[in-house]
């Protein structure tokens, strides 16, 4: 077993061990539990970063394989998976620190942190799966591991949201299962990402179209493509760190990642081009982008507004993937990284406001900037990044998406992107403005330790948003590797 193999496996196992440990220690041992959670997330993230340092130059290599009859569990390291793995595991560390503060007074902390860590391991499993069966396995497990987090509060609304989440996800997963079985018969049992495109060459284009749309509908649920997005806004009843991490980063990006895998690893660029499904896909994404922004505009509950914004932004990533051009793929990868790091700050800020003032609605936020200047300040700056303004990271991903659409002669997409940017400005800027100019009768409260635990990760990730905006080249090695993986330039 090489170092890479051991690390891939260990990064998944360590969070699972952490989860079992958290479940085993008594509910009163708060400090010990917090140390385990943050420690496990930190060690796991460090391992993934070390993988980046080790493996990026050498490209794809098989890491670990264990047979399940004719199906094999197969973990592989490749640039695309590594990008998602690094993104998720790094943000997990910050989200777990934030959770320590946010869940301070919660009575079911043990249950929360157990599933929180389990989900971390499963997410890395998705990132590093080397064949479709492994992917499907972790994808399905993610649904079940995150369900307890969604329904955490146990209220009627939460349970209803959980029911909706499970229904959408399981229906989506069964589409994926059907697609995998169909792929199995078409390729004669080949499910490895590295060898599927060649094995698919003999299938008729009619069959391939059915296969493609089965995958798209399946992954589209978690990627929240309209009209499959219904579960996401309701899932906002979850505790804020869950909304921030799962519903802006891990779970939704797992869906996006699935679509990317389908387009680039299962079918390959040439095959998708030959299917001539691109117009439909681009229209689907454009509609989701515009409609998502329009609906976000009308939401008064801040977290719901953010959820619709997420739906719209995820479609940017998919749009970039469907244009099938190197520049657009670079834009998609950048947007995956930047959207996650920006949106998580917005959610964190919304969570702090809700914890400190009890306000959940946009219309109530007037004047909150006065008592929570750092929080609302970060919110304001980062929301500029969401709109796509310089010097914030969001600008660069949109820039590449636009260059990609121009290079692919799809100038109409430029209009879509600009229009959506305008709508983003319309639903984000008033929040900041009213927070700092509005009046309220709130009294400044004593700073608690819990607030500190929430504020520090928020500010650090917000700083990343600015740093990436000033030095977008930092992400270049990773994004270049992904593009080089799928386009022979």
């Amino acid at each position, binding site marked *: 077993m090489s170092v890479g193999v051991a690390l891939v496996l260990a990064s998944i196992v360590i969070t699972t061990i952490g989860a079992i440990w958290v479940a085993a220690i008594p509910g009163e041992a708060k400090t010990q539990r917090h140390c385990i959670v943050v420690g496990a997330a930190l060690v796991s993230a460090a391992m993934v970063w070390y993988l980046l340092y080790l493996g990026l130059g050498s490209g794809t290599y098989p890491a670990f394989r264990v047979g*399940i*009859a004719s199906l094999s569990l197969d973990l592989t390291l490749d640039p695309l998976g590594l990008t998602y793995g690094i993104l998720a595991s790094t943000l997990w560390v910050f989200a777990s620190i934030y959770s320590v503060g946010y869940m301070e007074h919660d009575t079911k902390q043990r249950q929360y942190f157990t599933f929180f860590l389990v989900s971390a391991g499963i997410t890395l499993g998705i990132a590093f799966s080397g064949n479709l*069966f492994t992917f499907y396995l972790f994808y*399905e*497990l993610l649904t079940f591991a995150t369900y*307890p987090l969604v*329904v955490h509060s146990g209220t009627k609304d939460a349970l209803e949201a959980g029911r909706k989440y499970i229904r959408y996800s399981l229906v989506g997963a*069964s589409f994926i*299962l059907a697609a995998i*079985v169909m792929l199995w018969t078409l390729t004669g049992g080949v499910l490895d990402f590295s060898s599927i495109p060649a094995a698919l060459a003999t299938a008729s284009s009619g069959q391939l179209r059915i296969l493609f749309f089965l995958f798209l509908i399946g992954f589209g649920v978690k990627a929240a493509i309209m009209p499959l997005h219904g579960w996401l806004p309701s899932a906002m009843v979850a505790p804020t760190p869950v909304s921030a991490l799962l519903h802006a980063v891990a779970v939704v990006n797992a869906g996006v990642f699935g679509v990317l895998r389908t387009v680039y690893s299962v079918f390959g660029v040439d095959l998708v081009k030959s299917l001539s499904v691109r117009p439909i896909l681009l229209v689907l994404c454009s509609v989701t982008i515009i409609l998502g922004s329009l609906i976000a505009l009308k939401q008064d509950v801040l977290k719901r507004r953010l959820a619709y914004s997420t739906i719209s932004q995820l479609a940017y990533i998919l749009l970039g993937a469907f244009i099938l051009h190197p520049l657009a793929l670079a834009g998609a990868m950048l947007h995956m990284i930047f959207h996650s790091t920006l949106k998580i700050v917005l959610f964190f800020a919304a969570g702090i406001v809700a914890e400190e003032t009890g306000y959940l609605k946009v219309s109530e936020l007037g004047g909150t900037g006065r008592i929570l200047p750092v929080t609302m300040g970060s919110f304001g700056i980062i929301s500029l990044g969401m709109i796509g303004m310089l010097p914030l990271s969001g600008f660069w991903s949109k820039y590449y998406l636009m260059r990609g659409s121009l290079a692919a002669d799809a100038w109409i997409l430029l209009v879509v992107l600009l229009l959506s940017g305008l709508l983003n400005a319309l639903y984000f800027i008033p929040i900041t403005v009213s927070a700092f100019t509005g009046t309220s009768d709130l009294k400044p409260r004593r700073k608690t330790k819990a607030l500190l635990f929430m504020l520090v990760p928020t500010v650090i990730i917000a700083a990343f948003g600015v740093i990436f905006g000033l030095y977008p080249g930092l992400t270049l090695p990773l994004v270049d590797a992904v593009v080089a993986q799928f386009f022979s330039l």
Partner: protein
Amino acid sequence: MALAFRDNLAVLVVVALLSTAYIMPLLTKIRRFRVAEYFAVAMLGLALSGGIYLAREILLHGTFTYAVGGWPAPWGIELSLDAVSGFFLITIGVVATPIMLYASVDLIKEVGSRSRAAWFLTLFLLLVAALCGLAVTGDLFNIYVMVEVATIASCAIVAARNDATSVEATFKYLMLATIGSGFVLLGIGFLFVLTGNLNMNFIAQELSMSWQKYPTALWVCLSFFMVGFGVKSALFPLHVWLPDAHSTAIAPSSAMLSSLAIKGYIIALLKVFYVAVGAKIITRLPITDILTLLGMVAIIAGALFALAQDELKRRLAFSTISQVGYIFLGIGLGNIHGLTGTFMHILSHATTKALLFLAAGAMIKHTGKSRISEMAGVGAAMPVTVGAFAVGSLSMIGIPLFSGFVSKWQLLLGSLANGNYLAVLVLVGGSLLAAAYLLPVLRMAFFERPLQKPVVANVSYVQLAALLFLVVVIISVGVVPDGVLQLASEAATALLGLEVLP
């Protein structure tokens, strides 16, 4: 020597269980009732190890026959040991042992009196012996005898508690099962008239030469078998007796009936269809299409009925009807993947449903709540039991890493190999419906806020051990199914009469 041991083991498994069954009333004269119970558990454990040994021998050295009393077939009774027998013997052992272990904890309290408990042990062992007999037998007469023993024994253990509802359910069950037996007997009669034999290998030889002379008679005869065994194994729409019988019995009885008893008849059906009549003839008759269709209807209808139930045990009973549909679908597909899926589903449904019924029994007994809508907070009161129930649910839905996925995957491949896309749809839809009728139980138990603070219930460690044993079996079959899967596909190959692949 080794060979003689192997040959005799086939009959020893059945005989040992039969004689243990009859010793039970004597053993219970000992003051400590536990002695008798643990003796029964030990015998079942021995039967399991015998089954594993036989299966290993069959895999290594191929099939063999054993002439009881030294009288060769067609005059004597012949046991025929192939991968089918090995597979079913293992299934029986793996499921019956933990069920007996679970039952041993408070059997006397459950059934009412010490003497009733003694009879329960006898009948339970008789049922297991009859199922083992069905696994190893090679002739139709024996099949009939074993089917009758199994039927009477299972009727009796439904009535173990002796209250009005379970006696009524038993009566309904007895009536329908007797009608089923009648059909089976008619079918056997037809085959005897057509071929002059009761030994299945001889029947197969006769039929392969002469079946085209009387196709209608064969048709009618197979329909009799289908209806007869269909009633007994609760094939939709012949299932009407099952929900009452399986939901009113005590937990170990429900588990035994739902997981093993009905599978015995399915094994008998498989033997008649694929061994006596033969794959070549069966697949040319439309009877397999009918089985596929009935299987698909059963999957959906059973699951829809299950959704409508609020009582936990009734929901599980209807779930059995849906899952039996999967097994019949596989039989109807009639290709290697379909039949492998059938065998794998026999094993995975047996372990899973036993686990679900036993866990449900513990939940109902310790909280006194039998309805799903009342179960809020049960998860906090008995986390291990409800956790085991969760494992069972995930396996039943067919999530990878649990045994249910392995069987459903084979069935999916089998459907696609036949180009039957409707079956693919039904299989996937059935899984979704299974999620719809099982996950709400977990939601109520774990996540719904209880009205009053739950009291921690102390489930006995022996019962927990039985549950955990089944959990371990389900997960290990799900994670490393290679061995069982090889045995299952060997069994399917044997039935299809294909060359055994190296």
